[in-house]
């Protein structure tokens, strides 16, 4: 078994080098769906950080016992359990946000990032490293979502976290509230990041 990477490397990879949204273009549906209000984004982020870190930890703890051929089923079961727990807790303690997020909390189950990390990392690494990897990647996801919401909410509603920040005469950009607004922002960020901070492979692609 290869030696697990150092903790600092795990965080560097999750936040920047292998950022799930900007570099791997994973978890896009939820990125598009929940970023029109900062509050929704924050709750979604908290849900994903919890689910991803706990799923990675659990998958890693069970990694030596789980038969290879049924590992996907086991992973899905683990992820789904945590997601349902998150959904129940949000419904119980934050009912209004639960409504605003609608089906998207439940859809964390299908967030490719989680299954991706379980398969790519947690399955082959010890529990602590997997747990940290889960947190790092989830924070990498969270930061991008917040960066998008930071533009969409002020331009689309004229507010940030519900407080009015735009001048009175400001006309909200309706397009920013809808999915196209998220596509524009996401595309813009991906372009900036890839153009100005390319990774080795991306540089090679450009040379070709």
């Amino acid at each position, binding site marked *: 078994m290869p030696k697990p990477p150092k903790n600092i490397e795990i965080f560097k990879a999750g936040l920047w080098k292998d950022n799930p949204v900007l570099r791997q273009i994973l978890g896009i549906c939820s990125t598009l769906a929940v970023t*029109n*209000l900062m509050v929704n984004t924050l709750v979604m982020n908290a849900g994903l950080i919890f689910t991803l870190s706990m799923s990675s930890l659990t998958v890693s703890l*069970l990694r030596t*016992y*789980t*038969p290879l*051929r*049924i590992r996907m*089923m*086991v992973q899905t*079961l*683990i992820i789904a*359990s945590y997601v*349902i*727990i998150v959904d*129940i*807790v949000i*419904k*119980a*303690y934050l*009912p209004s946000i639960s*409504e*605003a997020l*609608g089906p998207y909390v439940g859809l964390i189950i299908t967030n490719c990032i989680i299954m991706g990390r379980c398969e790519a990392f947690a399955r082959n690494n010890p529990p602590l490293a997997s747990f940290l990897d889960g947190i790092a990647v989830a924070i990498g996801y969270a930061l991008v979502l917040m960066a998008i919401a930071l533009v969409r909410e002020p331009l*689309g*509603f004229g507010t940030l976290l519900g407080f009015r920040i735009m001048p009175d005469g400001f006309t*909200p950009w*309706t397009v920013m*509230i*809808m999915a196209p607004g998220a596509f524009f922002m996401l595309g813009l960020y991906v372009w900036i990041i890839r153009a100005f901070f390319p990774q080795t492979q991306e540089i090679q692609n450009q040379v070709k």
Partner: protein
Amino acid sequence: MKKRLFSIAYMFFITLCFTAVVSGVKVLNDERIENNQKAKLQRIILSVLQIPGSNDPSDDKVNQLFETRIKSIQVEGTTLYLGYAEDAKTILGYAFPIGGPGFWGPISGMVGVDSEASKLLGIAFYKHSETPGLGGRITEDWFKDQFKGLPIFPIEAGKKIFYLKPEGTGEAPNELDAITGATGTSRSVEGFLNSELDRYLRTVWKSLKKG
């Protein structure tokens, strides 16, 4: 063979463990979730009947107010909520659930009608999946407030109780502002609200008056 059996037993055992944990969390929070939903419904019913105090942040206070001022009865398969004045005798009006297909998914709401069934007291929506900031604006005060005091009557020959027109173009008192950028949602609200009010006047109200 042994390996396969182990896989099956393993999956079975793991499923059992996780389902147990999830069920536990659910049972622990069930009461709280139910209370949240109950309080929300109570707030909505109080608000469409224009009974002050529906915005009180304490769920217990809202529940108390609801218990003293609202009574529910079943008429013609519709749940009617009777709103009483503070003397607990005079009926202020009736609230009943409304709903229909929205642009993205079903919309559920509540509407309050005065004791003579002559005008609307208020409306509110408690469940919808319309686009936030567009169709989702049906829950905003400016939209709901337009319906206060709207005269209602059984619909005859193609005439509607109210129409939703592009913002600012309504001339008659029953031409209300639609939501800009949410034509689909506006149209469906206009559709189901008109037909549900009509149904209330024709069946529920009639059988209620007969006693």
